[in-house]
Structure formats: structure tokens, C-alpha cells
């Protein structure tokens, strides 16, 4: 199935969780926030939320320097 990750269309397996998708793209879960279809997903739900066709994900990285 296809999802949109940070504005780009990506192929991924059916029934994949957000956490597995992040692993697939080697994204460190501790340094990011995920927005799924415009809603922020709490960190503890990343391992249980299953992605569906055409889901739109934005992965935003914590940046703290000044």
C-alpha cells in the first residue's frame, strides 16, 4: 500500500504500525513527533497504530539549539 511520508509517496506493507514504519526508515523514535492525518500521535501509541492506504504522516524532529 501507499502512504505519504513527509510529503513523499512511499510503498509499505499492509497492516504496518507507525513504529515499524519508523524502523523501516531508520528514524529514531525518541527524537521525533509523528503527525498522522494532521493529528499528533502520542509516543505510546506508535507501536499500536496501524497505517492505512493514503495515510499522511509528517515526522517532525525535536530541535532545541539556539
Amino acid at each position, binding site marked *: 500500500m501507499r502512504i505519504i511520508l513527509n510529503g513523499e509517496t512511499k510503498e509499505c506493507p499492509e497492516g504496518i504500525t507507525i513504529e515499524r514504519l519508523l524502523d523501516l526508515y531508520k528514524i529514531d523514535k525518541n527524537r521525533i513527533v509523528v503527525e498522522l492525518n494532521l493529528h499528533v500521535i502520542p509516543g505510546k501509541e506508535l507501536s499500536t497504530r496501524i497505517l492505512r492506504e493514503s495515510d499522511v504522516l509528517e515526522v517532525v524532529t525535536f530541535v532545541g*539549539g539556539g
Partner: protein
Amino acid sequence: MSSPFTEEQIKRYSRHIILPEIGGKGQQKLLNAKVFLVGAGGLGSPAAFYLAAAGIGKIGIADSDCVDHSNLQRQILHSTKDVGRSKAISAKETLEALNPDVEVIPYTERLNSENILQIIKDYDVILDGADNFPTRYLVNDACVFLKKPLSHGSIFRFEGQVTTIIPFEGPCYRCLYETPPPPGLVPSCQEAGVLGVLPGVVGSLQATEAVKLILGKGEILKGKLLMYDSLAMDFKKVKIHKNPTCPVCSEKATIRELIDYEEFCQVRNS
């Protein structure tokens, strides 16, 4: 009717005054405005420079650090001669030399839950250029409590983020990043490096937002996170939304007092 400006001011601000969006009235708003900057470092430097040049009447600038040689690659408020001196004091001298119309109030104490509300309560716009998460969360929560507009900017290596927080009207920092990241997982600029010119871009964007907020003109980054990748030279805007369970600005808010995330500082310094 007599002009509210001196002859020197008319010359100094002429390029503003001829802009229909600003004019004499807008320039007067800038001269009457009070902006508070958290940090006189990478982001605070360009932001404060442009705000002072624009004639912001009162600029408060808080930084408890002293100038180090490693700051000079990007923290343009400070010069080689300032190494070892207070950043807030150095900033005041630089800014007042640029524009004597501006009153700069330096704060050399570290912002904490005890002092921040009192310090920022009389300012119109707050600009966050802090270099650590405890201060960023403190500033966000304080601005929510006081309903102060907050221009947020942050940088890391080659990337920057900017958003403008209008408490209760749009999302706050915690709507997106609910709690600070686990200690030690997000490296600081000290640990990971930062492109010197990057805060020049990001801090200038923050100053632009502050000026627009004061003028009441244009579109601001409310509900939008602007992400800048200087290596790819890519600007991307992501919509961010009010979180209905935000711990500080939603109806289900649980945070009623300011928090000092001291443990993070201890981890960082170890």
C-alpha cells in the same frame, strides 16, 4: 500637525515609513513596542540586531552565560573583545550603539519558574532563542499562562524550525512536543555542531514574525511549523494543530504551575 519623529528618526526609518504597510503609524507602533528575547546567542543575535535597527522601543534580553570563543562563529552581537563578559551586557552595548532610540534591558539571571512571569509580563512579544529544552518548555508555559505571543525558533546542525505561538488561538509548543525529549537523546549545538549562518536565517525569520505581530500585518506562522534545511536549501511548512489534550493549553490541561526541568541540565552538564 507636528511629526512625532525627530529629523534623525525620519531619516533612520525612512525605508520603513515609505512602505504603505508600515508608514509613520507603523513605525510609531514599533517605537512603542516591547520585545523580550530569551537568549543572546545564535538566534537572539540576528533577531535582536534587526529588532533594534527597526526601532523597537524596548528590548529585554536574557542570558546567564558569558561569551566564549566558540560563540563568535555565529553569535554576531558579540566581538572578540567580549570573550568572558556577560552576553546580556554585551548585547545591550552592541544594540544601543546601533540605535540610541532603543532601550535595552539586560537580564543576567537564568530564567526559572520563580522569576519568568515577573520578568516577561510587561513585554508585548516574546522571542525564544534558548539553547536548551528546560528553558523552551518554561517559556512556552509562561507565555500560555500570560497569553503572550511567542516566536519560537530552534536550530540543530544544518536545520532550523520556526513557529509562532498565539496561546489558545493556535497550537502551543506542547501541542506538538508534549513533553521534553528523554535526557541526552537530542544533542545540543555544543555536542553536534551548527552551521554558523543558520541562526542568521532562523533568528531573522523570528524577528520578521515579531515585527509583523507588532504591526498587525501579514500572515504569521500560527499553526504552522516552518522547517528549514540549509544543506538542501529547502523550506517546508507543516500544519500543526491545537492538541485537544495538550497538558498546558487545552481544556484538559494538567499543568497549572511552571516546571523547572532541572534534571535535564544536570544530565547535559555531566
